[in-house]
């Protein structure tokens, strides 16, 4: 409140005017670019953690009951003699999902790029509420620390899955975790408030602060996707917060919302969680789709294919996202008739998704495709997201879901959409905007090597999981060898684990390369990719306040290879020296 009512900070046009003290500039920064970079480093750290947890749980699955190398560094309560305990395994799964979804992917997409890109792409000086923005980052930081800390407390970290199904999550005596469980709830509640502040900021900024001529249908798709995502978050996350509060009360002050003994409803938790949860997974894919659209148009030197339908497809996905949550509950005991309608709405989502996939292909069609690292990752996104989306169709069909629900088929789906989808898009975005953020290029050869390794090992890890799921291997299983029908699966699991270690290795390679380029990479020009959107019209990195004066926008965001131009791109604030491309088609808005 106070922050909103406060007079907006008048910020300097360019550094020289009045340089800020270090602490205001880099720690409690209000500059959207610095905040974006703060998010980037924090999230990559959490990505590293999430990956490490994955590697640990993969070791147990690959070599059940064997001492994990270096595992004896862990305390007795987790892995005595390096052998992972069942209760610790459950924490590993839970925290892996939690860190990846809430502290790595989501803030990498939104926290980093909504902050960094929106003001630059719409052509304004900063966010509408810079100070709110600062709070959003620091609350996120705190929530992350709280979540990390929960490993250290008595009883360990939460062990009821990232979905926190009640009553398991509400009954410490059943899950064996009490403090860690409460810290999970508190951490995510703080996280929710942080992203709420973010959403308010992004939405207000996009609505009210676009540069002259930047009409809705001249916005780059990256900004469109971030705008829609912010709305999703604004409406979905508060519901989770409410549910979390009830869950916390059930544990601490004896309420019984989700505890059946006095008429509470365990399924109510699932309804509330997934009412948030499914929009959440679209929060995790829409920005990825936006970035990929920018990058594919740029890499194909061609206007995006069907700009308007790309926008409407995203709007459709976002809206449908609010009426499909039940597809996570087909086997939960929910009314079967309800399952039917949820199945239909879920299947319908394939349609706008199809539009997007085929329009990306349409953009590449008859393009002039550049094999830059960002483009490779973007194309990788299209190929892998398609696989993940298609596996979603199996589960959307209620009868098939009877068999594959809670099996590794789901795990395969998750990772194809979240890793092959979201994370590939994030890598693409990092490679694409790194020069703008840090004024240096990432070495192309190293980038291509990183892409090749990630692409290969990713598929080696997650494609076989479809097979494991078809074989009936359940999720969240500490020791598959307990079951007859999984007897034949151990060598596949071992192979998957080995590939997973290699995949983590390629992640570390990226880490090295990232920091190497940060200091050693060759200096980047303002517009290394000959791109058309506004952020490339300012120096790399942009100065405090971005623009000496607000640019005028004359046409749509993807004017590549215009026939009347000798250079193959026309940036949004360039007045076309020849006939205005506005005549040439739909995407150039009015």
């Amino acid at each position, binding site marked *: 409140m106070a922050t909103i009512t406060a007079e907006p900070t008048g910020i300097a046009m360019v550094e020289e005017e009045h340089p800020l003290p270090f602490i205001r500039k880099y720690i409690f920064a209000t500059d959207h670019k610095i905040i974006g970079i703060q998010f980037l480093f924090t999230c990559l750290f959490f990505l590293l953690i999430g990956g490490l947890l994955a590697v640990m749980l993969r070791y147990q699955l690959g070599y059940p009951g064997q001492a994990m190398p270096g595992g004896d560094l862990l305390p007795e309560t987790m892995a005595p003699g390096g052998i992972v305990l069942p209760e610790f395994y459950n924490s590993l799964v839970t925290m892996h999902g939690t860190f990846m979804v809430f502290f790595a992917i989501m803030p990498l997409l939104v926290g980093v790029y909504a902050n960094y890109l929106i003001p630059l792409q719409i052509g304004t000086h900063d966010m509408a509420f810079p100070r709110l923005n600062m709070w959003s980052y620091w609350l996120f930081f705190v929530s992350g620390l709280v979540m990390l800390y929960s490993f250290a407390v008595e009883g360990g970290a939460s062990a009821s899955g990232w979905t926190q199904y009640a009553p398991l999550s509400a009954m410490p005596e059943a899950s064996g975790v009490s403090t860690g469980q409460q810290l999970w709830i508190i951490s995510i509640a703080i996280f929710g408030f942080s992203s709420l502040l973010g959403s308010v900021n992004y939405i207000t900024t996009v609505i009210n602060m676009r540069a002259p001529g930047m009409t809705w249908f001249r916005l780059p798709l990256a900004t469109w996707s971030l705008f829609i995502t912010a709305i999703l978050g604004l409406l979905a996350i508060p519901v989770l917060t409410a549910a979390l509060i009830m869950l916390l009360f059930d544990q601490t002050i004896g309420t019984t919302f989700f505890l059946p003994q006095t008429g509470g409803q365990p399924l109510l938790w699932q309804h509330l969680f997934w*009412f948030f949860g499914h929009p959440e997974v679209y929060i995790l894919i829409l920005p990825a789709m936006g970035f990929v659209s920018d990058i594919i148009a740029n890499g194909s030197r061609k206007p995006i294919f069907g700009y308007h339908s790309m926008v409407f497809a995203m709007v459709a996905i976002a809206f449908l996202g609010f*009426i499909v949550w039940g597809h996570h509950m087909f086997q939960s005991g929910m009314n079967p008739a*309800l399952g039917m309608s949820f199945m239909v709405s879920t299947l319908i989502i394939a349609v706008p998704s199809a539009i997007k996939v085929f329009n990306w292909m349409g953009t590449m069609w008859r393009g002039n495709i550049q094999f830059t690292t960002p483009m490779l990752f973007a194309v990788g996104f299209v190929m892998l997201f398609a696989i993940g989306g298609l596996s979603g169709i199996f589960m959307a069909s209620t009868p098939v879901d009877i068999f594959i629900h809670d099996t590794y088929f789901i795990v395969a789906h998750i990772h194809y959409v979240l890793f092959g989808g979201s994370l590939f898009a994030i890598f693409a975005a990092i490679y694409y905007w790194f020069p703008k953020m840090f004024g240096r290029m990432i070495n192309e050869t190293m980038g291509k090597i990183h892409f090749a390794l990630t692409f290969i090992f990713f598929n080696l890890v997650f494609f076989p999981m479809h097979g494991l799921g078809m074989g009936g291997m359940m999720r969240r299983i500490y020791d598959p060898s307990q079951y007859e029908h999984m007897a034949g699966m151990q060598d596949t699991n071992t192979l998957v684990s080995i590939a997973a270690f290699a995949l983590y290795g390629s992640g570390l390679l990226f880490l090295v390369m990232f920091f190497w380029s940060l200091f050693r990479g060759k200096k980047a020009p303002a517009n290394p990719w000959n791109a058309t959107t506004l952020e490339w019209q300012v120096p790399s990195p942009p100065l405090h306040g971005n623009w000496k004066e607000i640019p005028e926008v004359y046409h749509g965001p993807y004017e590549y290879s215009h026939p009347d131009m000798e250079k193959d791109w026309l940036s949004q604030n360039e007045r076309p020296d020849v006939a205005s491309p506005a005549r040439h088609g739909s995407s150039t808005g009015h």
Partner: protein
Amino acid sequence: MSEAGKQHPRYMLVFGGLAVLTAIEVTAAFMGFPRSVTILILLGLAVWKALLVALYFMHLKFEPRALAVLAAAPLLPAAIMIVVILMDYV
């Protein structure tokens, strides 16, 4: 954005309305109508009061249409949530 001596909505009238409606609510609740009737009356009055606050005190009546739409938008997912979950129980 505020021109001097601007005409204000009749706030006191709205206030009176709210007070009276509240009084009616409290009495209606204990009139011993059939339960369904009571619920309908009370909900109707509550919505009426809510609208008075939103339209006059929060000035939605005098804001650009777009803002009113934006403010009302969440009611759709909100309604979907409650109605659909209720369908699971009845």
